[in-house]
C-alpha cells in the first residue's frame, strides 16, 4: 500500500455552522458545533473508533441513521445512546469505550 499520504482525519465541509462549543469526550475537551450529530463531532475530532465490542474490537458508526447501534456511547450517564442521532449541546459529557 503506497498511496496513503493523505491523513485519515475526516473534514467538515459544505455547511455554515453555529459557533463551536466544547464537549467532554472521555475526559478530554472536544470542539464541536451545537446541533451537529455527536457522531459527526467524534469523527471530525479524529476519533474513528467510538466503541468496543465485548471481545474488544473497535466499533464506529456504520449506518449513520439509527439502525445498527454500532455507534452507541454513554451520554451524560445514559448508556447506549446512538451518537448518530444525539445532537451536540454545550457541556455534553460523553464516554466511548465498551458499550455497557
Amino acid at each position, binding site marked *: 500500500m503506497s498511496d496513503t499520504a493523505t491523513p485519515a482525519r475526516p473534514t467538515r465541509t459544505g455547511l455554515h455552522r453555529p459557533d463551536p462549543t466544547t464537549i467532554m469526550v472521555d475526559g478530554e475537551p472536544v470542539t464541536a458545533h451545537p446541533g451537529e450529530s455527536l457522531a459527526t463531532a467524534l469523527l471530525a475530532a479524529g476519533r474513528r473508533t467510538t466503541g468496543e465490542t*465485548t471481545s474488544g474490537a473497535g466499533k464506529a458508526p456504520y449506518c449513520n441513521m439509527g439502525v445498527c447501534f454500532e455507534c452507541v456511547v454513554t451520554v451524560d*450517564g*445514559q*448508556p*447506549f445512546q446512538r451518537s448518530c442521532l444525539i445532537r451536540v449541546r454545550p457541556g455534553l459529557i460523553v464516554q466511548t469505550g465498551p*458499550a*455497557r
Partner: protein
Amino acid sequence: MAHYDTAVIGGGLLGCAIAWHLARAGTRVLIVEKDQVNRHASGQNAGSLHFQLEFRMVEHGDDAARLAARALPLHLDAQRTWAGLEAALGAPCGVALRGGLMLAETPAEVAALDRKAALEREYGLDVQVLGGPQLRELAPYLADTVRAAGHLPGEGKANPRLVTPAFAHAALRHGAELRTGHRVTALHRDGGRWRLSTGDGRSDTADTVVLAAGVWTAELAAMADVRLPVFPVGLTMSATARTAPLLPHLIQHVGRRLSMKQTAEGNVLLGGGWPAKLVTRHGRTDLDRNPELRYESLTGNADAARVVPAVMRLPIIRSWSGMTTLTPDQLPLLGPVPRRPGLHVATGGSAFTLGPTYARLLASTLLGDRPDLPLDDYSPARFGALNFV
C-alpha cells in the same frame, strides 16, 4: 409405520428430558414435535431456578400457599438435580446457583416473607430472612426501599436457550428418534397399543405414550377421550442490553410480580408473571398464535424492576410472550392417566425449575421402578371426577 416402547409427544424440556432418561435405559423412544425443539415455553421462559414459593403461590393467602407448598419436595430434589445436570448431560446449560433473594418492601410484605419462610423450612428448605446490614452486604445493589429478603443460597438460573437442546442432543445420542415438524392429530388404542397419527397420513404405535405437550396437553388428552384440567396462561418477558456484571442473584418479590437475573452474557432478564393476552379467533383461544404483549405488562414489569436502581438506565432491547400451563391447584400434573393404560402426562407447575425432576420421576414410573418421591399429590387421578369413562 414403526413401533416404539414409548412415544413422547412434545419436544420441550419435559419431552426431551423424559426421552433422554428412557433412551438411556435402553428403551426405544420417539419424540414427536409439531414445530421445532425448544420452540415454546421451554425456550421462552425466564430460566429462573426458584426453589422458594413464588409470588403467585402466596398472593392468594396462607391456605393457598399451604397447598402450593405440597410441591416443595420436588423443589428440594430439583435443587440437587440442577447442580449436577451439566455433568450428567455433558453439555453447558448455563446453570449458575449463586443464591436467590425474595424481596419485601412493606411491613406486610416482611410479615408474609416470615410466614412463607417458616412454611418452607417445615419442608426442609434452607430459607433465611435477611435484613439490615446483612442484606446490604450481600446485595449492595438493592434499592433503599427493600426492607428484607428471603435468601436461599441454592437458587439461581439456567439458560433456557441451551437446556432443552442439550437434553434433545443427549437423548439422540442414546438412540432416541426425533421427528420435528409433525403434529400428532389422533391418538387411540389399537390392539393393546397406542396408535398416534400425524397430519401427513403417517402413523406409529407405542406401548406407552407420554403427553408432554405443554399448553396443548388438554387437546391431546381429548384425543384419547380424557379431560385434563390444564389452562394456558400468557406470560411476558423482557431483556435489557448487555451490561457489566451487576446482579449475581436471582431476584423475586414477595408482594409483586417480579423475577430478575443477569445472564452470563450480561443481559438482565425481567419477568415474574406479567400477563400476555391469549389470542382468540372465532371466539376461541388460539393456542397456535403467540399471546399478544400488553402495554401494561411491559411498563408494569419495568416499574417493578426499580428495586435494583442500576438497571433502570438500561434499555429494554426485546420482549416476548409465551404460554405455560396452570392446574386448578397450581400443583403439577404428573403420572399415569387413570383408565388409560400406558398413557402418562407431565405438565403444570414451574416445569423449567422442576422439569428435570418431573422427567426423572416419570421416567422411573415408566421403566417400572418405584419413584423415590411420592407422586400421589400430583397424580391426574385427583381430577378423576372429570372423566366418566
